[in-house]
């Protein structure tokens, strides 16, 4: 089922079925693995240092060290797959047994000594994406003596999908596919990140969600993305992207005020008649399209300067919105409450989009092209945000799909 050329590839044979009992006690059940992982990590750290020195001398990772570290990375992936509900069965402790969320890691090859020597600084951009996907530990900083500390927590996509998936799996006995695939994407990137850090490969981690997860579904959601971007970027407009977006952001802010009242009106009408008025649906759809033209421009997911009216088919990053349909009054009545999980995930995807724009800015300036992986990661983040936004505006009652999709992205 592997779809990627990357030497470190995720294999996924999970059937989405979840046992409610093990899901409910998942954290407690994972405690032995946590202890084992901690012990293994200490040894792996020492072996990694030894591997670095040996690889620097030999130009490749020695086979015994490679096998040990590869098993460690496989184990981490399997265990985190279990813990984050990407898979169901209890994993083995060896890292060598097969598992529904597994890895293939290509045999060790020669690596550039320069790349080995400076591996740590090379890891920095990948570490930013890794933190966006897997989350950063909680931290505290004290601005001034005597003042209260400010605690910051970055949840990461993997943790949030697990959190939401826990409730969903308990309720339905199945993990929603979108959440599972989003978690698998995070795991795949994490595995590639650690493999690169531990010198199992010299291929840089690939942030492309389409290459990360095998067998992605093809969907035709009422709110979906059509991407016709060719990855080329104008260095001049990339350098000045933020100030260039300012007139658009002001215009969007003004439009948002109208859209807010439009959404309230839409809620009242849809609740009473079961469908949006056509003119209001068109107005809110144009607003949503325009907003995501602007965000795609700002976040470097697309290149050209967008128009100001959200015209259909006018931009390479196009949010396609289906015509109005009947909507469930129950779903309409409780729309804000129902949207809460989507909004939580939206904030995590927002953090990912932020990492994409920071890294993409430097990369596009240097090469005049946006890396495909970063572009697709950003597109996934914006597509999910657009779907959530559209759900809140009552353009559809179909819930936003949280995972990557093949055609749509």
């Amino acid at each position: 089922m592997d779809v990627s050329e990357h030497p470190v590839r995720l294999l996924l044979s999970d059937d989405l079925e979840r046992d409610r009992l093990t899901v409910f006690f998942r954290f407690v059940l994972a405690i032995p693995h946590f202890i084992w992982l901690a012990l293994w990590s200490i040894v792996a750290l020492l072996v990694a240092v030894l591997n670095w020195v040996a690889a620097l001398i030999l130009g490749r990772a020695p086979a015994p060290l490679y096998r040990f570290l590869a098993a460690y990375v496989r184990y981490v992936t399997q265990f985190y797959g279990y813990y984050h509900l990407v898979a169901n069965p209890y994993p083995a402790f060896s890292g060598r047994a097969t598992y529904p969320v597994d890895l293939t890691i290509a045999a060790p090859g020669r690596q550039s000594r320069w790349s080995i020597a400076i591996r740590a600084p090379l890891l920095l951009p990948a570490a930013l994406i890794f933190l966006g996907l897997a989350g950063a530990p909680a931290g505290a900083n004290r601005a001034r003596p005597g003042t209260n500390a400010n605690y910051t927590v970055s949840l990461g996509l993997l943790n949030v999908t697990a959190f939401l998936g826990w409730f969903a799996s308990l309720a339905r006995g199945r993990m929603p596919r979108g959440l599972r695939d989003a978690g698998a994407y995070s795991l795949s990137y994490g595995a590639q990140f650690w493999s690169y850090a531990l010198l199992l490969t010299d291929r840089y981690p690939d942030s492309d969600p389409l290459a990360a997860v095998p067998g992605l579904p093809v969907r035709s959601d009422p709110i979906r993305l059509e991407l016709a971007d060719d990855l080329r970027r104008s260095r001049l407009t990339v350098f000045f992207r933020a100030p260039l977006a300012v007139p658009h952001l002001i215009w969007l802010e003004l439009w948002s005020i109208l859209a807010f009242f439009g959404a309230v009106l839409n809620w009242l009408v849809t609740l009473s008649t079961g469908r949006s008025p056509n003119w209001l649906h068109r107005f809110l759809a144009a607003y949503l399209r325009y907003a995501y033209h602007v965000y795609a421009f700002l976040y470097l997911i697309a290149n050209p300067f967008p128009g100001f009216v959200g015209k259909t088919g006018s931009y390479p990053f196009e949010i396609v919105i289906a015509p109005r349909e009947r909507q469930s009054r129950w779903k309409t009545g409780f729309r804000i409450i129902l949207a809460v999980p989507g909004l939580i995930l939206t904030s995590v995807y927002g953090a990912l989009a932020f990492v994409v724009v920071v890294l993409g800015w430097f990369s596009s300036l240097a090469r005049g092209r946006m890396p495909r992986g970063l572009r697709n990661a950003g597109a996934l983040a914006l597509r999910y945000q657009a779907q959530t936004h559209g759900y809140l505006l009552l353009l559809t009652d179909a819930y936003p799909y949280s995972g990557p999709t093949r055609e749509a992205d």
Partner: protein
Amino acid sequence: MRWLRDAYRGAAARPWRALASLLALLALAALWALAAQALWRSSVPSGLRLPHVGARSAFSSSLLSRSSSYETFLAIDRLLATVALVVALVVYARRGHRLMRESAAGRIGTGMMLGMLGFAVVWLAELPFGLAAVWWERRHGVSHQGYIASVLDGFIALGGEFVFVSLALLIAMTLAGIMRRWWWVAAAPAFAALALLSAFVAVYLVPQTHVLDRGPTAVDVRRLARVEGVAGTKADVQNVNRETTAPNAEAVGFGPTRRVILWNTLLDGRFGRAEVRAVVAHELGHLAHDHTLKRVGWLALFLLPAAALVALFTRRRGGLARPEAVPVALLVFVVLQLVTTPLTNIVSRREEAEADWSSLRATRDPAAERALFVKLAQTTLGNPDPPTWAYVLYGDHPTIVQRIAMVQAWRARNAR
């Protein structure tokens, strides 16, 4: 000159229409001249003769030498920046239209993008000279601003400039789409109206301010505002001491939004109460003589011919209705601004002189006024008697020596 040939052929074909156009233009020119004359009026006595004041009589030779070297560097730096600006805009006018492929925004949106990118190119071209100026000011202790902060501030400020240029192009290109060749007739008043609005709300756009409502300076503001006929005018203090040590003040707004803004570097103890009072009276003088509105008036008078020339020079690219004409429009507009700078400086100096005169009449304290000007030269390292070329190109205030001479003239006039 193809446009001239076309105009001649058009006039030969339809002489009565040409005559009517000529008469309309003459009427417009006459109105322009009348308005300029009205704006040119000043309350400074027309027969006032300024006595000769030698810079060496008021300032030490070391200060003169230091300030001369300081200002000469900045003036040359500014001149080079202007050359870089023009070169960048010439290149942009020739090649900027190629950037149209980076837009999916339609006619006006693409024009807005090209306008913004023009400003961005200008910012890049002027950046080294801006950094050189920061280095020089830091070296002389006039500025505290760091280099990175200076670049970042400029970059962030671009956002505001981009909004301005987008709005201007939105108006001009919309009008050009509707009125074709005659868009400039409607655009000039529209821009003047925008400038008026901007002058009215300017007080809300000044960052890092707080109201000055207590202390001796607040008392002086209230008293002097009554004396100068602008009772009720308030004063704000702007915190700038992190960036600069130079003192300054400005008058902003009109009607209910008129305000005097004092930099906190003016109130840090280096200037005595009487000297601060002179500054306050000067700024109130601007408000009392409606200089904010007069500046909008002058701007309108500048914009009318400037917009007409922009319309003329952009014809070869299909007129300002087309986005590819925007880089040319930018070049023409900026060059016109540069060419008319010595003229606008004359107007500005006249208004500053009127504010000085107003201040003298309100405070009746020529000693404080003189002391203020001496201290201003010392703290800003401004050359009290700059070379003529720098005075003509960059002097938007009378020189310090001229301002001291005005103090002496006032004293002589009131001693009689």
